[in-house]
């Protein structure tokens, strides 16, 4: 007969939270912010093909920090969910808030019931339209969902980076300034991030249905130069 040791629920939650936080802290952080014409997501990502920032739908973008295989699976589920919703109903019925809620439920379930909690934090951004406001939803590893008004940071050093960015950018400004400050906040005072290690995605209206663009390195350099 095997022995069962008693573990208090408090201890269990604490252990799981520590485990998830450690995993997330190993990855690089991401800053997402509103700017005067849309939403920008800035990630430090040495890989050019394993993306942290992606398109979900016409006006919805996704960013994930932590373990790549875990947040990429959430990204795939998000694309599938959005395309199936738009196919079944109409494109305008696809709402980022509903997707953020599903992510929160799934992360919450995995935290309490899964073999191990997911070591990820995700961001869902929605570019506003006549129907819906511009929104940033931040979802943490245990399913906490926050609706952030102007900018949001996920990943290991989120608190420090948040402080730096909040001080540098106290209000919504243009893309170049927002990008430059986001990169500075990610880097901190003691280092600079090379342009090849930056991944930047924006949601901006260009008169087309799809609004997501991943900025090419040339464009990033140009924006950092003028910011």
């Amino acid at each position, binding site marked *: 007969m095997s022995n069962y040791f008693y573990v208090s629920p408090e201890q269990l939650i604490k252990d799981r939270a520590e485990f998830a936080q450690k995993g997330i802290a190993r990855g690089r952080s991401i800053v997402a912010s509103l700017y005067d014409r849309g939403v920008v997501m800035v990630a430090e990502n040495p890989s050019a093909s394993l993306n942290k920032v992606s398109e*979900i739908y016409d006006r919805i973008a996704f960013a994930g920090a932590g373990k790549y295989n875990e947040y990429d699976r959430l990204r795939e*589920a998000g*694309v*599938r*969910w959005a395309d199936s919703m738009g*196919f*079944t109903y109409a494109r305008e019925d696809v709402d980022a808030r509903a997707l953020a809620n599903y992510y929160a439920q799934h992360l919450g379930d995995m935290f309490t019931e899964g073999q191990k909690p997911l070591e990820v934090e995700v961001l869902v951004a929605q570019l506003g339209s006549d129907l819906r406001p511009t929104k940033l939803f931040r979802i943490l590893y245990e399913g906490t969902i926050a609706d952030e008004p102007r900018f949001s940071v996920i990943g290991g050093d989120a608190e420090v980076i948040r402080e730096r960015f909040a001080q540098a950018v106290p209000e919504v400004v243009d893309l170049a300034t927002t990008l430059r400050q986001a990169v500075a906040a990610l880097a901190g005072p003691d280092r600079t991030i090379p342009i090849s290690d930056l991944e930047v995605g924006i949601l901006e209206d260009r008169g087309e249905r799809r609004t997501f663009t991943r900025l090419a390195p040339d464009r990033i350099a140009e924006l950092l130069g003028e910011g």
Partner: protein
Amino acid sequence: MGLPLFRPTQDPGPSFLGLTEALGVAPEWGPTASDVPHATTVIAVRYAQGVVMAGDRQATGAYIASRDVKKIGAADRFTALAISGSAARGVELLKFAQLSFEHYEKMTDTALSLEGKANYLSPIIQRNNLSSPLPVLPLLAGYDPTQRAGRIFEYDGAGGCYERYDFATIGSGSPFAEGALRLGFQSDLDLEAALELAALALYEAGDNDPSTGGPDFVRGIFPMMVVLDAAGFRELAGDDVGERFRRINERRAESRGVAGGALR
């Protein structure tokens, strides 16, 4: 609809068709009632820098069901899909193709090749046409950025996909359009000549096939004309198309409707 998460062994991958089947929202491809609007003429012609397409606007049931249907749609930036056969199935196929190509692109972060898009539609057409009295026959044309050329793919009733290197037609007016195209086609046509030829071929089809709508000068409804080149998909303005058909119409009025002798 909940969050669609799959185990790696059951994952539908970037295929939107696979996803709809896994989720149980796939369209029903099986047999249904007939007697639905159909009949069409759509033409695709290759030219030096890409492809031009022209399609009539009429949906025909027992009577004329609609006079302003758009039978050519942008499947993505460089690809157009035209439909003939059952209107319901055709519109569904167009929507499905658009979603599938975009879904693939978002899932994998790479665009599907033009040939990949053409092949993807084969089993869908096959499944529909072999099990249903509502056949659908599409025509896929696009600009292939890797080959830097326009390409045309046509299908047979069983879903077979064939690349055409000159021109292709679909719909009930095809024999007449094909006749004009065979006489007028040359390799390396310039854009203006290709548009002129496509318009003339469509005029012929509208003139001879009762189920193909010709230019409608009374209502100001003209066939749809599309250009696909390195800049992507663009539809010609209604006035531009109207002017082309007005010129053809005037030539025909001068010859009292006789088309023979030369391409006019």
